[in-house]
């Protein structure tokens, strides 16, 4: 069994310092890898080179600290929480800390990716080391000034004190500290003594957000910038045959109409590819205009003729294909313990259920967009992307440019949810700017965004359990997904290890509809299916559903199976906490509860949903959520992530779906696609397991279990098992919104 993953981190020369010409000390450091031997941090703050160092700390003569935060911000709070970790070990008052987004990165930046709830987990150790090492250098400088041994000095809140009680501020010694050798083996703080980590700290951009300052990709502008709107095929499987832009070209504000696609075709022909590419190589029509509105209007006036290139698929076809695959015999077995076949043959009872989920678009509130300025000298890209390093690589390949010519700047992102892992909007912007040789902003409308997305694929599960002498003896899960879903380690999540005969089988239907990661990738529906199944299984076995989980976890404790990802003690901990805090089993009349527990993204979560029924319509009133995420770095930010994950999960489990007809997405805006709104939201009551374990992810793990908690509560209320999402479309009720 895995306890905690060791993160390899070499202390040797991960950090270097310089004295700034304008005064103060600059610390350049690299998370996760050593600095190259010959590089030194610049002496001019405007020359920060993120190829040499992936993050910088500036300490001014006044002791003020500026942290150039390395990770992209998509709303998950890392722009606040990562600097908190540095500031904690550096031991400076948070009020003296300023945070700026690290501008650029390319090849040396190993994990400048926001995704998988991993930013804090991977950054924890190196960020602490960086802060602690910088603090030690300041102490060493002060000790040298006083002519005393560094061990006699302590540092706290930006001041260094010696045994005589004399004090120097960090600012007083930055000049001396900057030229000292970087110490090794610096001791980290005991978590008991944390003063910043564990405190609630507001989002560092809060003032700018509440006053509407330019922060997001869509807000970015440059002198001479034009706007581009891209006409893509209206259906998956269609290809542009021809178009007539006469009317568009005559419209005021329209500058030009061009086509792109050639660069992408060449990219694929050259045998290049990258996991972040979801583009197809068909031609697209681009309207270039001097305003967003002219570009959008101009696009609507294009008369395009489309040809069928491949299958024009419909939801009925997907449903039928996935069910056929589930009933078939061809699977890729991802984990197999014992002998499932034998267990089922010998069973007294077998429970088998099929669970179904639709395609889901991400629907980031900020539609996809990107700025590009391609000149002979360089390629400048600015915008909201979760994977800037991949963007730089793909664009350099696409345009045949040296990677050193490609500069990517990240803006704040109006939501990510996985969509901004795939940088096709940046690649399109680059191809457009390359063609017109002007600074350009590619803007997707909501219709473009929803209708030409990278969707969470439709997935179906068939889960079967065998029961013998009142015990669970076998568990067999089959997944059929469009394109792909189940991923490497997931077959080792609960209940792997807890059931003697256990098997996970996967099969896919290859579709021309683009799919990819969506918040809590791979498990966002899996948890709903499995935890709905366990609820029903407990009933069939005639045992208490909570006790069933506790008994199964008992079997995993002390296991020697290294593949098992979850920790049974920690899963047991969140189950007991949620039972305690949710008033489980003792609710008021008319309130029905549903339970669910899940491990993913290294975090253990248990949830209880309280619902009432109003004229046959389920209303989720309250969710109690117990979370074990190790040390909570920023409780305020953590609560936002947890509550957001729960409500997002309820919304998509109950209301949201994207269907297809002849390749055409049947929703393209919020009048035909339902996202959860305030009147449909419960109060989310969060409880943390107290822990000194290293922090784990929070952006995703509270989402997967909630669908089952709601479905199980609806079962408690109605006796009806819901197996198909979105639940409200499969309950034969008129949706009613209450305030």
């Amino acid at each position, binding site marked *: 069994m895995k306890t905690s993953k060791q993160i390899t981190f070499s202390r040797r020369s991960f950090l270097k310092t310089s004295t700034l010409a304008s005064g103060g000390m600059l610390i350049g450091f690299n998370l996760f890898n050593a600095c190259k031997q010959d590089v030194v941090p610049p002496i001019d703050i405007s020359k920060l080179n993120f190829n040499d160092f992936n993050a910088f700390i500036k300490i001014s003569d006044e002791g003020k600290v500026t942290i150039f935060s390395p990770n992209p911000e998509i709303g998950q709070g890392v722009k606040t929480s990562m600097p908190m970790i540095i500031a904690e070990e550096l031991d400076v008052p948070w009020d003296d800390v300023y945070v700026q987004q690290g501008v650029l990165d390319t090849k040396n930046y190993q994990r400048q990716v926001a995704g998988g709830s991993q930013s804090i987990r991977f950054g924890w150790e190196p960020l602490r080391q960086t802060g602690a090492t910088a603090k030690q250098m300041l102490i060493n400088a002060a000790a040298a000034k006083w002519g005393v041994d560094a061990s006699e000095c302590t540092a706290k809140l930006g001041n260094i004190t010696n045994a005589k009680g004399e004090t120097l501020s960090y600012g007083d010694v930055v000049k001396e500290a900057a030229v000292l050798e970087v110490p090794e083996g610096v001791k980290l703080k005991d978590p008991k003594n944390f003063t910043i980590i564990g405190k609630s700290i507001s989002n560092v951009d809060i*003032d700018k957000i509440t006053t509407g300052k330019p922060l997001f990709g869509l807000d970015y502008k440059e002198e001479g910038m034009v706007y581009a709107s891209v006409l893509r095929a209206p259906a998956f499987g269609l290809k542009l045959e021809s178009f007539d832009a006469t009317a568009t070209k005559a419209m005021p504000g329209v500058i030009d109409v061009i086509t792109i696609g050639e660069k992408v075709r060449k990219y694929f022909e050259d045998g290049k590819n990258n996991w972040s590419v979801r583009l197809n190589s068909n031609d697209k029509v681009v309207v270039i205009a001097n305003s967003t509105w002219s570009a959008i209007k101009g696009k609507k006036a294009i008369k395009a003729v489309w040809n069928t290139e491949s299958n024009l698929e419909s939801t009925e076809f997907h449903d039928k294909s996935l069910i056929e695959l589930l009933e078939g015999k061809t699977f890729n077995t991802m984990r197999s313990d014992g002998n499932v076949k034998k267990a089922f043959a010998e069973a007294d009872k077998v429970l088998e259920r099929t669970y179904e989920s639709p395609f889901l678009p991400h629907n980031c509130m900020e539609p996809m967009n990107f700025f590009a300025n391609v000149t002979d000298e360089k390629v400048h890209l600015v915008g909201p992307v979760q994977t800037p390093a991949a963007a730089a690589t793909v664009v350099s390949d696409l345009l045949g440019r040296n990677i050193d010519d490609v500069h990517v700047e990240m803006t704040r992102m109006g939501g990510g949810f996985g969509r901004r892992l795939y940088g096709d909007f940046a690649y399109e912007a680059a191809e457009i700017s390359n063609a017109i040789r002007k600074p350009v902003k590619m803007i997707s409308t909501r219709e473009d965004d929803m209708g030409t997305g990278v969707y969470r694929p439709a997935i179906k599960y068939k889960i079967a359990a065998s029961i013998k002498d009142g015990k669970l003896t076998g568990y067999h899960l089959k997944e059929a997904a469009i394109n792909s879903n189940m991923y490497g380690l997931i077959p080792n999540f609960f209940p792997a290890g807890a059931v003697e005969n256990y098997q996970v089988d996967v099969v896919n239907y290859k579709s021309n509809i683009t799919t990819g990661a969506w918040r809590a990738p791979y498990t966002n529906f899996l948890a709903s299916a499995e935890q709905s199944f366990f609820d029903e299984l407990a009933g069939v076995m005639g045992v208490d559903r909570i006790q069933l989980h506790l008994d199964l976890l008992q079997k995993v404790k002390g296991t020697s199976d290294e593949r098992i990802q979850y920790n049974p003690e920690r899963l047991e901990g969140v189950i007991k906490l949620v039972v305690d805090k949710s008033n489980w089993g003792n609710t008021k009349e008319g309130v029905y509860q549903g339970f669910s527990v899940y491990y993913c993204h290294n975090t253990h979560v248990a949830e209880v949903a309280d619902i009432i029924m109003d004229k046959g319509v389920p209303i989720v009133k309250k969710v109690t959520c117990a979370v074990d995420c190790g040390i909570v770095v920023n409780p305020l930010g953590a609560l936002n992530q947890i509550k957001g994950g729960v409500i997002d999960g309820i919304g998509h489990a109950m209301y949201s779906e994207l269907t297809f007809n002849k390749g055409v997405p049947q929703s393209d805006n919020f009048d035909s696609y339902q996202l959860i709104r305030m009147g449909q939201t419960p109060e989310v009551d969060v409880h943390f397991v107290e822990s000194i374990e290293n922090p784990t992810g929070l952006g995703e793990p509270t989402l997967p279990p909630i669908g089952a908690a709601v479905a199980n509560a609806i079962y408690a209320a109605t006796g009806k098992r819901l197996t198909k999402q979105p639940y409200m479309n499969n309950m034969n009720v008129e949706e009613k919104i209450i305030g």
Partner: protein
Amino acid sequence: MPTFNLKINNETHAVEADMDTPLLWVLRDQINLVGTKYGCGIGQCGACTVHVDGVATRSCLLQISQAEGLNITTIEGLSENGNHPVQEAWKDIDVPQCGYCQSGQIMTASAFLKRNPSPSSSEIRNAMHGNICRCASYNSIEKAVKVASEKLS
């Protein structure tokens, strides 16, 4: 293209634009007031909410030709120093996650509280129902509107 005289945040702006141009894009592209956000373009999400004569209005549906002579307030003009009670409440509660929808949420909430300074919980939920927050920061928005109403009364 015709010229329109707009009164925005107590300043007059003369802008040239097609008469069907939504106020949203005039604000963003021409007047550089980018706090007003584009989310759907069809009045469904509320990200583009501004005040027109004090009333919360979707700027994506208001054509420039209809906007002349109206008193328009955007998030940038809601208060002198970003200290409107609703903005203060948003900071107290630390509402935003990605933050993109929040100017629209704040504009809806501030217009609503002007009309109804001491709303009930269900009145708050109804008033804010038209504004989508994809990060689902709804618990915090609800709490912040309540806190703002206490600041106002």
